[in-house]
């Protein structure tokens, strides 16, 4: 029964959370109210912290974590599958619709404005990660992180250099991990 409820709750979150990972948050909060035995708000905050710092899409991480917390590995599988299913089905439908309107000038015009808009949105996402990395709470005070800021500049400059531009992003991610440990960020 718990598994059915999990499936229902996460299918709902997947269907109505529009706009990516953090959009599932209100649904998770509602879950902790509707099913007090599943997890408390404090536990949810911990799960969000872990989900935000581990790799993978945020929404999927949270579904796996909450599902595991409620019903073990099977619970995690049920929650994740239920969260993903609405996305999957919607995209299949959207592709059908787009194919039908591919030659429409109105639709193409809309898409043409969307590309630069989404570029701006991605920049905004990068900016929020940037801001939270260089301006961070240390021992109760918000502090500007000089080392983090310099490291960012170094990385960014390196990426603009011709011979290094083709390096796989993984190289930089690995370098980030090593430097993070060495510099004790």
């Amino acid at each position: 029964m718990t598994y059915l409820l999990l499936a229902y709750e996460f299918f709902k979150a997947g269907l109505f959370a529009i706009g990516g990972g953090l959009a599932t948050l209100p649904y998770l909060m509602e879950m902790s109210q509707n099913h007090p035995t599943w997890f408390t708000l404090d536990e949810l905050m911990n799960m969000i912290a872990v989900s935000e710092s581990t790799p993978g899409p945020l929404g999927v991480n949270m579904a796996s974590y909450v599902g595991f917390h409620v019903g073990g590995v099977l619970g995690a599988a049920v929650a994740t599958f239920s969260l993903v299913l609405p996305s999957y089905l919607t995209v299949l439908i959207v592709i059908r619709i787009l194919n039908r309107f591919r030659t429409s000038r109105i639709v193409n015009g809309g898409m043409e404005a969307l590309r630069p808009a989404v570029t701006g949105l991605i920049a905004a996402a990068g900016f929020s990660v940037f801001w939270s990395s260089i301006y961070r709470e240390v021992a109760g005070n918000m502090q500007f992180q000089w080392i983090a800021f310099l490291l960012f500049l170094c990385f960014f400059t390196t990426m603009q250099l011709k011979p290094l531009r083709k390096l796989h992003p993984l190289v930089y991610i690995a370098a980030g991990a090593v430097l993070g440990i060495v510099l004790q960020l």
Partner: protein
Amino acid sequence: MKELFDLFYSFMLIGVFTFGGGFAMLPMLTREIVDKHHWATDEELLDYFAIGQCTPGVIAVNTATFIGYRRHGALGAAVATLGVVLPSFIIIVLIATFLSNFMQIAWISNAFAGIRIAVCALIVSTVLKLFKTNANTWQKALIAILAFVCVALLRLSPIYVTLAFLVFGAFFFGRRRSV
């Protein structure tokens, strides 16, 4: 069969090395999907992101489903989606089982802080590249800057910003000559 495996493997890599939510996977996506396999162009990736933004669900999953479907129909979509989801699932289950105090371990949180900075720099580099190709007229550059300001500074919801520009573009670009 080979391509199904490639789809799974590429999206698994993307799933393992995406830190910080859907948009952060753009540099990995560009490398694996555009540069390496030529499964989509930069413009198409942006289209998928835009659609992912205003359809339900996790953006990473929406993008995986889109590209998988284009290459190999519903099966390709399922394989790519499984690929992007599986690493999260495994990593979270391992952490939840063995490391309840995961983020309190000093070297792990240091490593993640370093990774986040690398990811920021990667995102900014990718955004610059996209800006050059997709905001090549002053109108479009203005759209990109406005969208950034609305979300990063005014904290408006990205969904409404996306929808607003979709409608604006349909009227503004749609009525004019085809481009």
